[in-house]
């Protein structure tokens, strides 16, 4: 047939929509920036004599978690706007392709903001990211995948319900706790300059989490689409 797979079609469509206006990206980026600002006031590093290494991982991860949430919420909002999810359900396409397509787009958008914010936070809080850039980047990527997997599944549900803005974080945050725990710990070890053996297992655990919930998402997405 020569047709690209539905999964890629959907992914491209989502990304195209997003880049057309870039409103979600910009909003999320500036939100992340604001969170960093609040942290600067909340933990006055100079006054408290704190080194960034002490709580830096936490700062980064709170920022990342909330900005990821925003990105994910948006992704299904656009479908809801004109009941497009129903139109997708009408297509002769496997629901898992729809899930994976949206997942890929979500991962891309979530990562884009996060990888932009990281160097900025290094700038604001004056820590050296260059040494740990690759490992921290890896941790962020692995966690973005898992967060997006759960988020794509949940957002598909909450976008069709009332009070979706409240419901999505309520569902997502408890479920994504392992990722946050492992992510923060790994980031702290990376920033402290520890060797890969020290944090490698955390990345592996996150990766397992990712795989499990991508599979679960693929299996269950059908039930969210079709009644």
């Amino acid at each position, binding site marked *: 047939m020569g047709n690209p797979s539905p999964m890629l079609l959907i992914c491209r469509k989502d990304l195209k929509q997003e880049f*057309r206006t870039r409103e979600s990206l910009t909003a999320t980026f500036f939100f992340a920036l604001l969170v960093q600002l609040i942290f600067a006031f909340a933990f006055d590093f100079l006054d408290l004599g704190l080194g960034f290494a002490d709580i830096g991982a936490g700062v980064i991860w709170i920022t990342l978690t909330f900005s990821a949430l925003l990105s994910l919420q948006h992704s299904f909002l656009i479908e809801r706007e004109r009941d497009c999810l129903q139109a997708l*359900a009408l*297509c002769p396409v496997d629901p898992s392709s729809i899930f994976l397509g949206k997942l890929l787009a979500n991962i891309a958008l979530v990562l884009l903001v996060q990888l932009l914010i990281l160097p900025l936070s290094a700038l604001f809080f004056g820590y050296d990211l260059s040494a740990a850039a690759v490992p921290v980047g890896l941790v962020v990527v692995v966690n973005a995948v898992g967060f997006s997997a759960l988020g794509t599944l949940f957002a598909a549900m909450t976008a069709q319900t009332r009070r979706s803005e409240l419901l999505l974080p309520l569902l997502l945050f408890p479920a994504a706790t392992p990722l946050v725990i492992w992510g923060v710990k790994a980031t702290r070890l990376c920033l402290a300059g520890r060797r890969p053996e020290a944090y490698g297992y955390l990345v592996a655990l996150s990766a397992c989490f990712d795989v499990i919930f991508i599979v679960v998402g693929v299996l269950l997405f059908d039930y969210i689409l079709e009644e």
Partner: protein
Amino acid sequence: MIAPFRVETRGLWRSFGPRVALRDIALALGGGEILALFGPNGAGKTTLLRILATLLRPSRGQVLLAGQDLSSRKQRMTARHRIGFLAHRPMLYDRLTAYENLFFYARMYGIPSPRDRCRRLLFDIGLAGREEDVVSDYSRGMQQRLAIARALIHDPDLLLLDEPFSGLDPQAATFLVDLLRSLAARGKVVVFTSHDLGSGLALCHRAVILTRGTLVLDARKDGFEMRDFAAAYETAVSSPARRT
């Protein structure tokens, strides 16, 4: 004359626990027929349409499309190539252009030479020249046309429309009526729901009334006068439904 393509439901039920949305619906439609589905709100019209569109699964009974029973997932998936659905909302991506919207769906349906098909369809639907505009810039009437184009992109044999005439200006309504007539002339099956008896009866070949999930009247329009049907509608809607 009934063309070979047929849509049938046999003993169709849709319920959740004690709540019944559709009760023992039996319908048989042949190619070239336009069916009007009337009934008060909450009667189950949309539910029936969505089952025919494979968006919902019946709790009991069968749906047959061209003789194929749609009870398995696989069959429902293949059947979607032949089903088009137009809902209340346009189901369009606001930030994409009209062309991009159609092109996306064309690829999703696996249509050969999608570009040509999209351009052709846009021309037929009267939107040529505006296809590079973003959908959010379209008027309601234009969005409706584009939504119709989306529903027809894969040339379905069964077209289902949920209240397609509501909120349409007379010009757009005429356009739609002509379009549906031409589709039926080509052997397609068209099913639409409506609250407007007058325009609905003018368009259809056949009309049914659904109340509280039950098919209370199935009339071939030729056998009914407009005012008879209107009276029948009033009775059917006001009296309690037969409980079997």
